[in-house]
C-alpha cells in the first residue's frame, strides 16, 4: 500500500513540472472556428431570439460558408458583423481595433426630433448652469435639465442642488418657485443603469414596481430565470413630486430606456416626444479566439403592463419636431412641454 502511495506522489510531483498549466490559444485559428465560437455563444446566451422571431440556424447556414471563404481578417470581420446585424440590437457589437460593428437602425430610420444648437442658442439662457453632467436652466418659470449620458456619474449633492434650484426661490436668480421640471434625455444613448435608478428615485413618491427582468439561465432560446422584480424607491434628501415632463426621442437607448420606463410609472410624470429606441437587454462581453471582442444582450425586461422594453417606451404624448419651427430656432417638443406644465 505504501508503495502505491509513494508512486502516486512521485507521479504527481513529475506532473508538477509541466510547463504550461493552461494551454495557450493556437497560433493559427481558422475563420470558421472564430465564426463558430461567436455563433455558438450567441445561440446559447442571446435573449431575444423568440421575441424577434429570428431563425438563428438559417442565419448560420447563410453566413458560415462566407466565413470559410473569407480571405482576410477584414473579410471575416464583415461576415461576422453582418451575421450580428441580423439580431437588430443596438447592444450587439463586434469590436476589433480597426472597426466596431453596429446596428443603429433603432434611431437612424426615424426622425431625430432633437437639435442641440436650437437649445443652446435659444433656450439655455436664463439661470443657465452646467452642474456636473447636467445642463440646466429656468425657461419661462419652468425648470429644465438636459442630461446627455448615463455614463456620466450622478452626484447625490448635485441632484439635491438642482431640485432646490427649481423648488426654492433662494436658489435661483429669479427668486421663483418653478411650476414644474422638464427633464430632457433626448439623444441620451444610455450608460449605467444604476444611475438611471438613482435619478428616477428623486421623483418617486413611494416604492414602485417598474419592470421585471429575466436572465438567460440555460442554452435553450427560451431558458430564462424566474422574473426579477425591479423597483424604484424614493431616494435622497430632496425629492420632487410636482409636475415633471420627460422628453424622449428614438436615440434614447439602454439605461435611458429604463429611466424613461421608470419615470412613466410615477403619477406626476408625463413622457413627451417620440418613442425611445429600446435596448431592454443587459449586454455582456466575450472574446473570440482571435482576440476580437463582441457584446450581446442576455436579459429581457418588461414593464408593469407586460410590454417588452427591447422595443422601446412609448411617450404619453407623441410630439414630433416641426421642421419649420426648427428652422426658426424653435424646439416644438420643448414648447409643448412648457405649455403642458404651465397649464397644469
Amino acid at each position: 500500500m505504501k508503495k502505491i502511495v509513494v508512486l502516486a506522489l512521485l507521479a504527481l510531483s513529475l506532473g508538477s513540472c509541466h510547463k504550461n498549466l493552461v494551454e495557450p490559444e493556437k497560433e493559427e485559428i481558422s475563420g470558421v472556428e472564430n465564426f463558430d465560437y461567436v455563433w455558438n455563444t450567441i445561440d446559447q446566451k442571446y435573449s431575444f431570439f423568440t421575441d424577434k422571431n429570428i431563425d438563428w440556424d438559417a442565419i448560420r447556414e447563410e453566413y458560415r460558408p462566407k466565413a470559410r471563404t473569407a480571405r482576410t481578417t477584414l473579410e471575416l470581420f464583415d461576415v461576422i458583423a453582418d451575421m450580428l446585424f441580423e439580431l437588430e440590437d443596438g447592444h450587439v457589437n463586434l469590436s476589433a481595433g480597426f472597426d466596431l460593428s453596429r446596428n443603429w437602425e433603432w434611431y437612424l430610420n426615424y426622425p431625430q426630433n432633437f437639435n442641440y444648437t436650437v437649445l443652446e442658442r435659444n433656450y439655455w439662457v436664463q439661470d443657465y448652469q452646467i452642474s456636473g453632467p447636467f445642463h440646466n436652466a429656468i425657461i419661462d418659470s419652468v425648470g429644465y435639465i438636459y442630461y446627455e449620458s448615463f455614463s456620466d456619474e450622478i452626484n447625490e449633492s448635485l441632484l439635491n442642488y438642482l431640485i432646490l434650484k427649481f423648488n426654492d426661490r433662494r436658489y435661483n436668480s429669479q427668486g421663483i418657485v418653478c411650476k414644474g421640471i422638464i427633464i430632457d434625455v433626448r439623444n441620451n444613448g444610455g450608460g449605467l443603469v444604476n444611475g438611471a435608478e438613482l435619478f428616477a428615485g428623486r421623483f418617486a413618491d413611494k416604492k414602485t414596481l417598474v419592470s421585471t427582468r429575466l436572465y438567460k439561465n440555460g442554452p435553450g432560446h427560451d431558458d430564462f430565470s424566474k422574473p426579477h422584480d425591479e423597483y424604484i424607491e424614493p431616494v435622497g434628501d430632496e425629492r420632487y413630486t410636482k409636475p415633471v415632463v420627460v422628453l424622449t426621442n428614438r436615440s434614447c437607448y439602454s439605461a435611458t430606456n429604463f429611466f424613461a420606463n421608470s419615470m412613466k410609472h410615477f403619477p406626476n410624470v408625463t413622457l413627451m416626444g417620440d418613442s425611445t429606441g429600446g435596448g431592454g437587454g443587459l449586454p455582456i462581453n466575450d472574446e473570440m479566439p482571435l482576440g476580437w471582442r463582441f457584446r450581446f444582450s442576455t436579459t429581457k425586461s418588461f414593464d408593469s403592463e407586460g410590454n417588452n422594453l427591447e422595443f422601446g417606451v412609448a411617450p404619453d404624448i407623441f410630439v414630433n419636431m416641426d421642421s419649420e419651427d426648427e428652422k426658426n430656432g424653435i424646439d416644438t417638443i420643448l414648447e409643448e412641454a412648457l405649455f403642458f406644465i404651465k397649464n397644469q
Partner: protein
Amino acid sequence: MRYLLVCLCLLPFLVKAQEDTTVRKKSQWSLLVGTGASYQFARDRGMSSLRYKGVQTASQAELLWIRPKSEHRLVGRFDYGTLESERNGAEVTAYRGGGYYRFLHKGPSFWKNRLHLSYGGTLDGFWNLRYHTGYSNNAYNNEFYLSLAPAAQIAFPFRLFKQQFTLSYTAHLPLATYVVRQGFSGTYFDAFINEEVDGVKGALQSGYMSGWGTFRRYYSEFGLEYTLKNGNGMRVVYTWDYYRLNSRYNPVEAGLKGGLFSIIYQF
C-alpha cells in the same frame, strides 16, 4: 517597513530556545508567516475564450500543530495581480483568497528510516475574483470551491553543515467539491433573483456538489525547511496548483505555480 522585514527574518535566530534540542516535544505549535510570488494561467469560458496569465504577489499565514503521531495545519493565503491576454493585450485583475485545514497521520518510514510517509485529508476552500478591465456588465467574475481531499506527504529530514533540514513533497486531490459559479450568462447568482437570499449566503446557496469527474484539482507543494535548534526556522515552498471545472457550459481552468518564503515561529 524594510527594518521590520529584517527583524522578522532575524527573529527566529534571536529568540532564545526553551529547550536546546531538536527532539520533538509531545505537542508543538508553530506560526508560519510567508510571502512570495505566483504565476497564474487562467481561462474562464464564462468570461472569454482567451487564456490570461500574469505574475501575482502571494502572502500566507499558517498555524501548525505537530503531535507525536500527527500534524494539523491551518493555512490562509491571498494572491493578487494582473493577468494579461497574449492575444489581444486585455487585462484582468485577479484576486484569489483561500485556505485549508490539513490533517496528516504519521505513517511508515522506509529507506533505512530516512523517508517518512504521512497521509490524511484536507478541507480546502478558495475563492477567485477576475475583474475584466474592458468589460462592463460582466466585469466581475467570481467562483468558489470547497473540497474534501485525501492528502499525503513524503518527508526527508537530513543534516547538512551540521544544520537540520527537511525536504518534503505534499499533495492533495479533491474527491468531492462544492462549486459556486455565477449565473449562466452573467455575473449574478441565482439566489439573488428577487433577493430571496442576498450576499455571501445567497452565493453559497447557488452552488452544487461535484465529484472528481467534473471538478479536478491537483495541488502539490515541494518544501525545504530549515530548523534551528530552538525550533524556529525558515521554509521555502514551491506550489503547483491546477484545477479544471469540466462543466458543459462556461468551463474554467486555472493553474498557479509559485514560490513562498516563510519564517517559522515556534511557541
